[in-house]
């Protein structure tokens, strides 16, 4: 269902913004090829390879759709990206799907616009978002930095995170809670862990590496410490807040 929603959003986006003849069937076909052939390395969201985000609509090795198609067909020599031997039609469908991934957020935004200025007021005031989140260097360290969240998450995802913060925790934002042998509680965002240690950014913004044999215990949390705004904000306020978040593209960083 979510896939279908994404496809529909992608279609809306392409029709609304690019105006060329990409059909829902093209995107669906592109998605099938992507999921089968590309997602194994690039991940379902197109971001599994470090430094490569296929859903960003930015491609280091291709400036135009034609170049992107050629890249998909021929691979990138000297990198693990292999040639795909696709027809033009197939490569075009993949490109359509990639654009749909990148364009989907703005389509939701278009469908339900809020007021970004009012949203910023809520963010800084009533919502108390900066207590835990940073935007352009200002704010707390309990939650993820939101300075470029508008370029990273789809509005639908942002809205869901406001209403149900635990529903879509990405591994990149995994909260962790550790208790040292003397009973001190350390909370933060998990950066990495292995068999013997945890690496985290604690809520004061300090990088900590904790040896697990020096801990009473620790928990990689499935639930977010963020409160739900479901009953704290009106639908319009939520839309305003989402519309503000969508404007955060990290320009000043």
């Amino acid at each position, binding site marked *: 269902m979510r896939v279908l929603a994404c496809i529909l959003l992608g279609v809306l986006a392409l029709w609304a913004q690019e105006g060329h003849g990409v059909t829902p069937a093209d995107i669906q076909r592109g998605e099938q090829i992507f999921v089968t052939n590309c997602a194994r390395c690039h991940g379902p969201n197109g971001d599994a390879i470090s430094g490569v985000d296929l859903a960003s609509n930015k491609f280091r090795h291709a400036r135009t759709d034609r170049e992107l198609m050629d890249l998909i067909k021929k691979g990138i020599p000297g990198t693990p990206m292999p040639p795909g*031997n696709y027809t033009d039609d197939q490569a075009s469908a993949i490109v359509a799907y990639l654009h749909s991934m990148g364009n989907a957020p703005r389509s939701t935004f278009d469908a339900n616009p809020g007021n970004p200025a009012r949203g910023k007021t809520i963010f800084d005031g009533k919502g108390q978002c900066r207590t835990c989140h940073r935007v352009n260097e200002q704010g707390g360290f309990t939650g993820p930095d939101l300075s470029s969240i508008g370029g990273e998450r789809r509005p639908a995802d942002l809205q869901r995170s406001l209403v149900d913060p635990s529903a879509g925790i990405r591994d990149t934002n995994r909260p962790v809670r550790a208790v040292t042998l003397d009973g001190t509680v350390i909370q933060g965002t998990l950066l990495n862990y292995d068999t013997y240690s945890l690496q985290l950014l604690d809520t004061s913004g300090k990088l900590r590496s904790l040896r697990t044999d020096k801990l009473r215990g620790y928990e990689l949390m499935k639930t977010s410490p963020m409160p739900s705004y479901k009953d704290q904000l009106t639908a319009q306020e939520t839309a305003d807040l989402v519309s503000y978040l969508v404007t955060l593209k990290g320009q000043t960083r």
Partner: protein
Amino acid sequence: MTARAVSLLMAGAFMCSAQVPFERILHADREPQNWLTYSGNLNGERYSSLSQITAANAKNLELKWVLQTRPPAESGGKYEATSLVVDGVFYTVQPPNVVVAADAATGRIFWIHAYNPSQEARLCCGRVNRGLAILGNTLYMGTIDGNLIALDARDGHQIWSVPVGRPEAGYSVTVAPLVVKDKIIAGPAGGEYGISGFLAAYDPATGKEIWRFNTVPKPGEPGNETWAGKSWEHGGGSIWTTGTYDPALNLIYWGVGNASPDWNGAGREGDNLYTSSVIALDPDTGKLKWHYQFTPHDEFDFDSTQVPVLADTTWQGSPRKLMFFANRNGFFYVLDRVTGEFLLGKAFVKVTWATGIDAKGRPVRVGHSTPEGAVIYPENQGGTNWYNPSYSPRTGLFYIPSWMDTHSVNTARQEEYQEGNQYYGGGATHDIPPLRAPAILKRLPDSGWGAFQAVDPATGEVKWQFKMADVTDSGVLTTASDLVFAGGREGYFYALDARTGAVLWKGMTGGQISAGPVSYAVDGKQYVSVAAGNAIFTYGLRDQQ
């Protein structure tokens, strides 16, 4: 005779010549200071009789040398090669096909041969190579663009190159070849491109193909009837992990890859022999002696490309020639390697595609790939994979690098074959990111973790389990001093007690380990070496002051 005495004796015998006649490979156990073939010996045990490094002194292990990849090797590629060591010379393959000869005691490079693969090369899962073979003065390597090449071991120059399969149709050669008598045995990968698989023997002097066994039989060949219609034409059956050889029975044993298309079984109804099977062939003729199929009608891309490990031990009180096979499908198997008779099949990870193996050795299948997507344990990468296991005749235990509690959603989809295109017929979600994704672990432990498991082959029971937070793509090495050497994605390289699994020593390589360790000796000093990240790491005991 001590390992050191053996080492010195053999060094003397071969000082004047680097020649490796097959007799040396056949009796590799007589010269444990060398690592002459992929698994160290032809029976696949990956067991070293060196014993200088012990449980008592393992704490004194230290890094002796590092060999880092440089272009034209591809940093960021997966370094999956098992290295060879011949009389003090260390041979390895940096990804994709860059062969390096170095001093095994210091890591100083003698020569580099950078094979330049065709742009037509296409690999499902990384531009990888799993190692070399040596015979006489010649090294043999498969290339990612589908060739088998011969290099002079003394200076690295290329002697010949022969095509195994066409790269534009998805054929590649990633397997480390196996030398058996006067033949080089290898076959093509490409099960994700709908190749028509085979195992073949090549003339060491010329590369001429001597025999070929079709892992997906053509019409008129036995087994073709297990493929509906013309589905055999693009049926897969790839070869990408090295087999083993029993000289007394004169049989080679080889694991065969998945049926194509991987996930869509509709259209290739039948068992799809000899995919996801182990085959026993006469190495002189390529004739099939027997086969055993682990995953009939594979719909999960399980392959069966593990090393078939040959052990002469007892079975239910009587001496018997056995084969141990820890399969990607999640079951550990014991077969009679004379006849192929199924003796035992027991899950070593969580398995949901089958409830067990029946008395005749056929899985009790309950799971299938579906258009809607079906949750199947283990995940697509399996309970284990190409990561070589090890068997210690001393402990009698079989050691399996394992992925615990992983699952995939397996989706079947109608797909037309087009030459050179990936031909999956669907796909699978992954609990675990691909190996070359950033080495950062944040996911919850309930979505997959790693372990080395020591299994008693008599029962399939797990005797001990060493748990890791992340999964492992590392092979296992055992030694005569009852040590297990192995690593994982976290970058730790371990010496474990082979009888208990206790950690005796660990070193941090800072890279993901996705290759099999080897052990060897130079000037009477034992080394343990493994590829990790983009480099080779070689360890030995601290010199006495």
